[in-house]
C-alpha cells in the first residue's frame, strides 16, 4: 500500500517549540495555501472579489479577513494566503472569475513557510538583520514588503504593533529562525 505523503514543517520540531520570551517570541506558523498572483489592477480587483479579500492597490499594504490575506508585493504582484485546505477552492474561484483575462496564478505553498515574531523587542531583533526602519510611523500595522534579513530574502508583514509575520523560502527558514534566536540572545 502506498504511503500517504506527510507535510512536515521546514523548521522541524526542534525549532518550532520555543518557550515564551520577554523580549520576543518566535513560533512556526501552520502550513497554509499560498499563491502568487500576477496581473494588472483591473484583474487584481476582480480576483480580490473572488478571493474574498480586496487586493491592495496601495504599495506595501496587506488586506486580510479572519483566515485569508492578500499582500501587495509589487505593482502587479500579490501573495495570497489561505487555510491549507482552501487551495482548490481559491484556485477554482479565481479561474472562474477571471476566465480568459490575462493573469497568472501560481501555487507556491511548497516553496514558502512562515514564522511569527512577537513581543516588545521584536523590531530590535529584526533590525539585527533587516535594514528597514520598523518604527510604527514608517512601518505601520498592515504594511508588508519583500526585504532582506541577513543573507535571506523574506516577506515581512506587520500584523499587529508588536507582531510580524515572516514568509520565507522553506530552505532559508532554518537560517532565518536561527538568525533571530541569535540576535535575540545578543540584545
Amino acid at each position: 500500500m502506498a504511503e500517504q505523503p506527510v507535510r512536515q514543517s521546514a523548521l522541524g520540531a526542534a525549532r518550532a517549540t520555543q518557550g515564551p520570551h520577554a523580549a520576543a517570541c518566535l513560533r512556526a506558523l501552520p502550513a497554509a495555501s499560498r499563491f502568487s498572483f500576477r496581473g494588472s489592477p483591473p484583474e487584481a480587483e476582480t480576483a480580490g472579489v473572488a478571493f474574498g479579500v480586496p487586493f491592495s492597490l496601495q504599495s506595501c499594504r496587506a488586506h486580510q479577513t479572519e483566515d485569508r490575506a492578500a499582500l501587495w508585493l509589487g505593482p502587479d504582484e500579490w501573495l495570497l494566503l489561505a487555510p491549507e485546505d482552501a487551495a482548490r477552492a481559491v484556485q477554482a474561484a479565481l479561474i472562474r472569475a477571471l476566465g480568459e483575462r490575462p493573469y497568472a496564478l501560481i501555487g507556491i505553498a511548497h516553496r514558502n513557510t512562515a514564522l511569527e515574531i512577537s513581543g516588545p523587542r521584536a523590531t530590535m531583533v529584526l533590525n539585527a538583520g533587516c535594514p528597514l526602519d520598523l518604527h510604527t510611523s514608517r512601518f505601520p500595522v498592515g504594511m508588508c514588503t519583500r526585504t532582506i534579513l541577513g543573507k535571506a530574502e523574506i516577506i515581512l508583514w506587520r500584523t499587529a504593533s508588536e507582531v510580524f509575520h515572516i514568509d520565507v523560502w522553506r530552505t532559508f527558514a532554518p537560517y532565518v529562525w536561527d538568525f533571530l534566536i541569535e540576535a535575540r540572545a545578543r540584545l
Partner: protein
Amino acid sequence: MLLIPCPYCGPRPELEFTYAGEANISRPAEPESLSDEQWAAYLYQRTNPRGMHAERWRHVHGCGRYFNASRDTLSDQFQFSWKPGESPP
C-alpha cells in the same frame, strides 16, 4: 546606509537594490544594418559622466521592479526616480 527612492515603494535601503546600468539606451531597430563599430558602441560605450547620471535600478528584494533614477556619480546623491515609460520629473 544609502537610501534609494523606489518609485513604487518609496525610499529604501540600498541593500535591497541592484544596479542595472545607464538608462535610455534603446536597442537598434535593425541590428543587421549596423557596422561592427556601431554595434559595439551600442553594447559597450557609455557616457560615464562625472555628475548627474540617468540610470536603471532594480528593487530586487522589494517590489522586484526596474525603474529609472538620476544620481550624482560624485556625491552618490539620488535626485529623483521615475517609472519605466514615464518622463523624468
